């Protein structure tokens, strides 16, 4: 094995012996010095996860979150130097993490927080202007053929839990005690300008947005959403998406998106 392979393996395994060949000027046990590197690696990565998942942390407490993150870091160190994406595997890990089973909504709150980080760093794009919307909606005959482009920052999370209300209660919006975590909610995450917004999408909104993303025309996407949810309300959904700057174009398929 190469020297760096041995060094790397010992960084992540607290039970591994100190790599051979390390020395100190005073002949002291190099393991104590090697422990500085071990600590730097694990603590800095735990810090990165704690930054990405602040509400997840508040839900279980800092001590629990950091201990859980430590297990994750050792099992799955980053595969990229771009740490903004490091948390992507953490929600699935939380779902399988036995000691967190008593908080069944924890993994979905973490998924929501990961969508927020992605939205924060996503590409910039201007939302459709009110004039463009008015023009696109002027002729009701053409409505079903319209195609919508979603903002690059847009993410949707459909959960069996009240992810949006739980998250909002930790921003000082609403009362945590009043949230029933077992009410299913669908979160829309999108950045408008510099601010990432988290809003609750009414039933079928996730299907509509998924339809847009796969290139379906408005009529087909709405039909699909309505067949998935009897309560689906296209006007309400479009108004919500437009209000939050979630769409960057509305155009006929014969037109090219601006």
């Amino acid at each position, binding site marked *: 094995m190469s020297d760096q392979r041995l060094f790397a393996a010992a960084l992540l395994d607290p039970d591994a012996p100190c790599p051979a060949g390390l020395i*100190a*000027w005073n002949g002291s046990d190099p393991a104590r010095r090697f422990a500085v*590197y071990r600590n730097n690696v694990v603590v800095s990565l735990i810090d990165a996860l704690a930054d990405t998942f602040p509400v997840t942390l508040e839900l279980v407490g800092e001590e629990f979150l950091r201990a859980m993150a430590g297990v994750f870091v050792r099992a799955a160190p980053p595969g990229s130097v*771009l*740490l903004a994406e490091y948390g992507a595997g953490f929600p699935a890990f939380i779902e399988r993490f036995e000691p967190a089973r008593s908080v069944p909504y924890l993994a979905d709150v973490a998924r929501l927080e990961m969508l927020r980080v992605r939205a924060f760093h996503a590409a910039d794009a201007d939302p459709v202007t009110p004039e463009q919307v008015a023009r696109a909606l002027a002729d009701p005959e053409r409505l079903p053929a319209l195609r919508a482009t979603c903002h*690059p920052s847009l993410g949707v999370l459909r959960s069996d839990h009240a992810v949006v209300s739980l998250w909002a209660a930790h921003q000082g919006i609403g009362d945590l005690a009043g949230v029933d975590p077992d009410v299913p909610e669908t979160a829309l995450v999108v950045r408008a300008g510099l601010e990432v917004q988290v809003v609750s999408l009414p039933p079928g909104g996730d299907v509509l947005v998924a339809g847009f993303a796969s290139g379906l025309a408005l009529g087909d996407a709405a039909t699909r959403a309505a067949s998935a949810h009897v309560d689906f309300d296209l006007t309400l959904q479009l108004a919500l998406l437009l209000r939050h700057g979630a769409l960057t174009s509305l155009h006929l398929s014969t037109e090219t998106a601006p």
Partner: protein
Amino acid sequence: MTMQTPFELSARGVPVRRTYSDGLPNRAGLGLKPQHFAEILATEPDLGFFEIHAENYLVAGGPFHHYLHRIRDRYPLSIHGVGLSIGAEGPLDIAHLDRLAALLDRYQPQSFSEHLAWSTHGGAFFNDLLPLPYDPITLTRVCDHIDQTQERLRRRILLENPATYVEFADSTMDEATFIAEIVRRTGCGLLLDVNNAYVSGVNHRRDPQTYIAALPLSEVGEIHLAGFAEDRDAAGAPLLIDTHGAAIAAAVWELYAFALDRLGPTPTLIERDNDIPPLPVLLAEARCAEQWIEDAQRRRTETMA
């Protein structure tokens, strides 16, 4: 700011574009932190430059680029890489090098620097600057990686001396000799981290002044100053940890004065990455560094007169 001069050939024949003092002004700068974005634009503090960690800005859009563009319009910029893993046994990550090249094209920084360290292995990234043995095999590998980096980025890079906690039984040369040989072979410049020189000096009981004096000081394009934390090794000897989480220690200011005496005025960054204080606290440290730089300038002028 950057003086456009023709490419020169390094000792190994690699074209390296040389820039005067690598372009940064001989003033103090600060690491750019998101919590200070808005305040910097609102108050436009009198400061020599800002420095960013390249990897934090390798994202598509959003507030980081929004603010960096505006701050770049007002200040000189240094881009400091923390993830290229120049000392790695494996090959450099070409995709990462391409991303760095795109970032440099976008922001046209006056300086780009990286570390004499490794941080990746077998596809894993350890988010720390890990130490290297100073032997001929490592020297060749590091030089190859620096040649490759300078060719791809089409500029001279500055290489930062490390803070280390262990030494290697396999090392056949001391750190200053190793670094001097890298500079000679690749034509790269030096980022002299005075805190690292001090921390490593204490940790390996070597004299930091002797160490600094043995480096190729004419190639220093930037200085870093930072704070450390104190620990103990297994024998109870002091072990200093390069945390970037405290004010600069008096001993490091003294060593900085020693270095400036030999270097003359040099662009100097106050590095603070943890427990980040309000902007005015960092600006006060920057002003302190600028006083030392002005002293160095004065002494130089007097000597010439």
